[in-house]
């Protein structure tokens, strides 16, 4: 398949994207000629050192930033248009729950906003079923400050899925959690994704996380940010905790680690 055909079929397509930021009196080159096609219903992780432009790529895909050069296309639309039509479920680094809303009302927040668009999100019954599925039923009327960090992040993820958006953008959603909760959240995310099948662009610092979750891992190098390698993760789905004991998992883990090291030294 040619590059043009792949881009036309892609859910998210970055085409030679460059981005600079102005910091006081100097320009910081955040991304340099980045190209990447994320296929429909694919789970792609972006991994790399701090400041390599992972979150910038996520925000470009979500239409929250504009590229200085190149283009980003989401399901044959501009990101701004996709945003207008509520085609994104966004999961930020911290849960970003509204402290005055209960769990139930936080989950419905993105559906409540910008209501005139055609995407109404999940029905209330489906939202409740999903929340029950991930163990949040006892907390439906709790306020965020009454929940642990892990439960808050569960609500944050449920909120993104409740919109039923075809594209999910996740910016290191588990980085603030302890290691045990973090491992638990990976499989929770896979569980929800297995049912909805959205396209996911996932930013992480964790190599095991990227390998367990993804179909492909895009490794980024820094100064300026660029994709140094894209690694296929050919582990079978559905994936359960046992996958972390397999030889294939450790092989891919090694590949990603080597690619990161290579990107760092180059």
């Amino acid at each position, binding site marked *: 398949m040619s590059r043009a055909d792949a881009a036309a079929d892609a859910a998210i397509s970055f085409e030679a994207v460059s981005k600079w930021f102005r910091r006081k009196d100097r320009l910081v080159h955040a991304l340099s000629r980045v190209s990447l096609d994320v296929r429909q219903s694919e789970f792609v992780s972006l991994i790399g050192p701090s400041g390599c432009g992972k979150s910038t790529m996520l*925000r470009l895909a*979500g*239409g*929250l930033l504009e590229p200085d050069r190149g283009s980003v296309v989401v399901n044959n639309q501009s990101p701004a248009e996709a*945003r*207008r039509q*509520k*085609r*994104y479920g*966004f999961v*930020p*680094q*911290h849960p*970003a729950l*509204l*402290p*005055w809303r209960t769990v139930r009302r936080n989950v419905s*927040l*993105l559906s*409540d*906003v*910008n209501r005139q*668009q*055609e*995407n109404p*999100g*999940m*029905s209330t*019954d*489906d*939202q409740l*079923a*999903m929340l*029950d*599925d*991930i*163990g*949040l039923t*006892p*907390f439906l009327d709790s*306020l*965020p*400050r009454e929940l*642990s960090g*892990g*439960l808050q992040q*569960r609500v944050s993820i449920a909120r993104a899925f409740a*919109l*039923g*958006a*075809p594209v999910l*953008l996740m910016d290191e959603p588990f980085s603030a959690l302890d290691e045990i909760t973090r491992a*638990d959240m990976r*499989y*929770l995310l896979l*569980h929800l994704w297995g*049912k*909805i*099948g*959205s396209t996911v662009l996932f930013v992480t610092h964790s190599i095991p996380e990227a390998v367990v979750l993804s179909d492909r891992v895009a490794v980024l190098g820094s100064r300026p940010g660029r994709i140094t390698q894209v690694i296929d993760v050919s582990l079978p789905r559905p994936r359960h905790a046992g996958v972390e004991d397999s030889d294939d998992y450790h092989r891919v883990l090694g590949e990603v680690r080597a690619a990161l090291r290579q990107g760092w030294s180059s």
Partner: protein
Amino acid sequence: MVELTGWTASPVPGPPDPEGGTDPGLDPEFGVEEPPEAPRRPIRRAALLVAPFAGLAAFFVGWEIYVLVRNLRPLTLPLPSDVIIHVVENPGFYSRNGLVTIQEAFWGFWIAFFAALFVATWMAHSQFVERATMPVIVLMQSTPVAVLVPIFLLWFGFSPWPKILTAMLFAWVPFVANALIGLRSIDSETHELLRSVNASRWEIYWRLRIPHSLPYLFAAGRICVGLALVGAVVGEFFNSREGLGNAARVAQSRLLVDQLWGSVFVLAFIGVAFVLLLIAVERRVLRWHSSQDSDHRGL
């Protein structure tokens, strides 16, 4: 669009049941441990409830004893019990004048609140407006408001407006400053989250900025209740035939010590009553805010 045709549940590891369901992974040898009983501290609770009244009583008893021991003349410092008896014996006079002052302070307070919210909203959304407005606010803050009362008199005569405007000017700077901080200091990730679904400015304002600024506005409100009362009284000092400020001014010129101190007591009572009312509303509205945790709460 992703197909959403009903959610079918399937097991996924969840958090522990807060109702105390048995965890299947629990070692049966240990079983389910009974939670400890919530500590009962009736004396501590009662003490906390009584504390404000005890503090006030101690203050007045101390005052009473001091006047008696030093044998002070009422003109120097009256017995608080005498002042209270005087107020209780003249309910019509104090309620009539108190109501006038309350009305002036009330309208001054709310006009200050809405004017401050309006200005702070403009400032929070535009750096240009903020830069253009800030010098005017500093100018208003630095000008002694009392000096403006004669000007208001020229404009509005003996109507309630000079007093209301004075009360408003006393109260509005704390409201503007707090509203601006509250509207501005929203969480950037939550802001981004709402932008990701193309929320309009109005939606971000209504769903995020306003609720976020409520704790700041309540904090300002507590200060501004007192300031609005001060403003109303200052206005009455200059031109009024009624109100507690006028009652105190007349009492001072005719050496009516009981009436002078009676006006002070009633003004203090009104201030405390409105602050307590505001705190009660705040506790209901800000149930979600950490300031309402019993561990962090003072009054």
